[in-house]
């Protein structure tokens, strides 16, 4: 028996009234030229509802990131367990961790509906190329194998249309033992797919090579290996769990984030954390550009580009990035902080109004009207925060009834 409490009843009633209001509005305004713009808009949210054995993610819709409670109570498409989420075109995808299924959803009348699904072997990094394609890369585990599965997912047919096995990068430790290059982030520019990676043994998470940032180049969409470029001013780009670690500006230049962070899962750090730049059309790092984040007392982990050279990033202080905080950027420890950086002026400002918070697997950022929405989980509370990079201020928005949000998308 489910009994609505007063608050829920009022909420339901106001939603109902709100819908009636919208309906009456559309009746008044007889606009006929662009009926598609009349469609309801809102957000698709991937909510992780609970911890523990029965933990599941729910893909649901929410109207406003700045108000209300994002809750799976009686709503949301249930997933088999923890999942990664991505979106391309009108499709919203969950990539299962419990079952090896990619499930595609679409929006109809403001509701998510099941579209189709496919089975996969491994998908560890996801990059939506355009409305019709997603690049998904699966990495091997167990040591002794170096081929990754570079897969092209056809969004419209929800099928894998190409699957090539090839190492992302060939790397060796001091004794000549070959390492696994684990894909961390990617982008497509022109006819090329650029993939960043970090090297680990693969039978353990030990990372003996942390001396350079490496980006491998493949042809797109054929996925033929073409080479790589690297830079030894900082460490590997990105880290485990497909974090947003490559940022693209208005000109098509890309900035790569190197965390050099123990909290991010590296077992050693040998270079400062910082940001490198790949100029539009180039297959090399810009040798004149390095934004050393450690000079500001922090390590940069993930981020999003907003515009006007401004980016919002999540960072871990040098004090918090200790060996006993290994993998803290994923877990329950409070180590994450938020900063606004200017990529060209190389300024760094902490967003003081966001509390030090928990780490996340796939760290979602959503940008709308030059404002950034991100997820902040403290000891026992989770909220969406809206960051204004111009003023370096933040405002607390919708409450999250759960333990994480793994995706924020617009519909």
């Amino acid at each position, binding site marked *: 028996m*489910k009994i609505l409490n007063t608050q829920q009843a009022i909420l339901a009633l106001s939603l109902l009234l709100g819908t009636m209001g919208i309906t009456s509005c559309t009746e008044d305004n007889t606009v006929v030229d662009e009926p598609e713009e009349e469609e309801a808009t809102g957000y698709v949210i991937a909510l992780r*509802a*609970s*911890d*523990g*054995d*029965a*933990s*599941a993610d*729910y893909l649901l819709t929410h109207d406003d990131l700045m108000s209300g409670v994002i809750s*799976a*109570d*009686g*709503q*949301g*498409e*249930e997933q088999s367990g*923890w999942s990664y989420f991505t979106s391309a075109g009108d499709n919203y995808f969950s990539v299962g961790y*419990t*079952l*090896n*299924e*990619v499930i595609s959803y679409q929006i109809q009348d403001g509701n998510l509906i*099941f579209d189709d699904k*496919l*089975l996969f*072997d*491994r998908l560890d990094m996801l990059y939506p190329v355009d409305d019709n394609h997603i690049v998904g890369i*699966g990495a*091997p*585990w*167990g*040591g*002794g*194998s170096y*081929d*990754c599965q570079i897969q092209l997912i056809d969004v419209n047919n*929800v*099928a*894998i249309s190409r*699957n090539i*096995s090839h190492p992302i990068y060939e790397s060796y430790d001091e004794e000549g033992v070959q390492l696994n290059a684990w894909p961390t982030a990617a982008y497509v520019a022109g006819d090329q797919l650029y993939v960043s990676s970090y090297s680990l043994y*693969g*039978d*353990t998470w*030990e990372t003996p090579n942390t001396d350079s940032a490496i980006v491998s180049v493949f042809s797109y969409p054929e996925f033929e290996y073409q080479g790589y470029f690297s830079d030894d001013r900082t460490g590997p780009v990105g880290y*485990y*769990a497909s974090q947003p670690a490559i940022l693209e500006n208005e000109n098509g230049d890309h900035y790569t984030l190197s965390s050099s962070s123990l909290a991010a*899962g590296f*077992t050693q750090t040998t270079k400062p954390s910082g940001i490198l730049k790949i100029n539009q059309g180039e297959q090399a790092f810009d040798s004149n550009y390095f934004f050393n984040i450690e000079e500001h007392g922090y390590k940069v982990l993930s981020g999003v580009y907003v515009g006007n050279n401004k980016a919002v990033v999540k960072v871990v202080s040098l004090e918090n990035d200790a*060996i006993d905080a*290994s*993998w803290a950027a*994923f*877990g*329950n420890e409070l180590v994450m902080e938020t900063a606004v950086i200017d990529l060209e002026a190389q300024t760094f400002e902490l967003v003081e109004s966001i509390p030090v918070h928990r780490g996340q*697997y796939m760290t979602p950022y959503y940008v709308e009207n030059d404002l950034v929405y991100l997820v902040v989980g403290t000891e*026992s509370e989770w909220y969406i925060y809206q960051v204004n990079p111009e003023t370096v201020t933040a405002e607390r928005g919708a409450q999250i*009834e*759960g333990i994480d949000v793994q995706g924020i998308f617009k519909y």
Partner: protein
Amino acid sequence: MIRGGIQLAGILLALFISSMAWAQSQPAVIQGFIADSHGEPLPYSSVAVKNQSQGVAADEEGRFSLRLQQSGRITLVIQSIGYESREVELSLSPGKTYTVNEQLAEDQVALNEVMVSGKSKTTLLREQAFTIAAIDAQPLKIQNLDVNQVLGRISGVRIRETGGLGSSMSFSLNGFTGKQVKFFLDGIPMDHFGSSLSLNNIPVNMISGIEVYKGVVPIHLGSDALGGAVNITTQQDVKDYLNASYSFGSFNTHRASFLGGVHFPKSDLFLKTSLFFNYSDNNYMMHDMEVIRAGNTTGKPELLDVRRFHDAYQSQAGTVELGVSDKAFADQLSLAITLSSNDNEIQHGYNLTKVFGEVRDEEQLVMPVLKYKKQDLFIEGLDVTANAMMLNRQLTNIDTASVEYNWLGETIERIDANHGEFSYYKTSLTYDDWVTQSSVNFNYAISPVQSVSLNNSYHYFSRQGENPLVDREFTPFYKPNTIAKNISAAAYQFSLFQQKLKTVVFYKLFAIQYHTVIEDEETEDYTLEYDESQLKNGYGVASTFHFNDWSQVKVSYEHTYRLPDGEEIFGNGLTIKPNTELKPESSNNLNAGFIVSKRSNEHLFRLEGGYLYRTAKDYIRQDASNPVNSNYINEEAVKLKSVEINAQYHYKQLINFSGSVTRQHNTNNNKNDHLYGDQLPNQPTLFANANLGFQFDNVGLDRSRLSISWNTLFVDEFYWKWPSQGNARSKFTIPRQLLHDLSVSYQLDDGRYNISLACTNLTDNLAYDNFNMQKPGRAFNIKLSYFLDK
């Protein structure tokens, strides 16, 4: 009035006979307990020596003591009005004490297939106030059943299996699951028996009964059970018997068992042996599976019906027990040695999109057990039972395939050659576990209406690991990890108002000490050593009141703990990390129940109802908030409530019916959680059982019996995940299951030769105990058995 007269006469007779005996020296003493087939005491039963004038009447509790000034062979005749009489042969020596415990069958009323017997005979006074369901396995032996199939018919019990014979199973009792419920074989904890000697491979032939304690557990089981205990008893009587059976059925399933006992009356030596063997291909059909054929790289599955191809299971076990009985120093003293092993192919884990073609487990177990029992040790009324055991178990998980399999058994190349099919690394890790365990129980009857009990149970566990694929210092458990647990308990039992009110109060002291060697995260070798110890107090009270001879109420309360076990503290060396700061789980258990039982010559009606309420906290659960490894942490608080009803009806020898319904409302009790008050996920909430049997005597042949038994199981649909979360349309469920089994048995020569035909899942329903895991469809089996019981 008439009954009172008989009582009085009986008491006078007893006094007279015992005073006669007292006058002489060095008598042989025969003592024991007379019960009905339910285990209920039969007060004032008569116990007499055949063809002689000597005899005695049992007391109100069905107990008797008879002193005889003679030696040599005698025959005791045990009688009670309304019951079939029994004869017991004894060979007497002067000065010795003999124990005769007998159960008499009702004259008119047939034995039910699943017989709920109030209490086991040896622990009558102590247990009466506990909430217990007991099964007499005797009538079930001719059927082809496992212990867990019998257990599954008890109210409040749900057994969930992932597949066929030997598949992994989980047991839940009123919402408590897994390690929270403790299992015992003849009072010896089964915690480390492993899978070669488990509820789902021990055939029902091997056992004589099952006792299920719901919530409050009596101290003689000396355990840290949080939510109840199950004690499986095997043949305890010292006598000559032989029982052999063989069954064959669908999915190439073969099962054989042999039990034998010999008693040498002159030396009072006895020898018992039991052997069993199980084999099955478990190659049943899986319907509408999503299959990716070899060569299909699109990820688009086809829906196909496929046969399981890597799920064969074989297990074998043997026990030999040698002992003496009826000696001055011991009623029974024995040494038993058990050897068992199994080989188990594993078709899949929890994820049916990943199929295994080579993963398997191997296990070997050796276990010597020493048992001692003596009534009236040194002084009258002091009873002692003690046992000690040692166990070595070697378990190897083998996962070394370099290819991937699909549901058609086709192999597919894989990018990660060193990855196993199941494990992150190829593995051939062997656990070498050593367990030593001892328990001693004293019970002293201060007077007929009060007694005290003391129990101490000690348990030591050590695990060492060996993996030929990895260097020694990187092998988990290459240095032994150990746990020592001690549980001490005391209880005081008393009865008031002419034994109408019986109460037991008890106290338990839980102690745990462990030593673990964990991985140094920087060097990844196993060098960090930890020592920790904890102490907890538990207590409780159980009480029962008899309004009259046909109605009774029971109430019990307990505050108890479950101490964390090896895997929870040490991890498993593969995917689960250690947690050296884990606290014991605790629970407050409240049980209330009633029993109404009416019997006439032709009809027997029994109704039993129970209500259980528990609040448990510091639940130990696996946490996976870190991508590399999970570990066990203390967290949830839960509130468990359940109501259960069990009804039985018998008409003469002809018809018997029993049914039970259980409704559970188990909720999240963590006030800081937004899921506070939500029903716990992945737990059935409503389930029921019904069994209808008919028996016809002398069908076709004299001294034959034809039995037909119909059994129905109902489990209502339940959610895999938290019920409140997500829209109902998309929620994953474990669908409602309604399964029917039919068995027809024919007994010849008064039950010496038996043939039993059974059809399980008669309607060939697609049934699930666990999310997505299909259970076998319709299956047939035939079982032949032979009994010889002197």
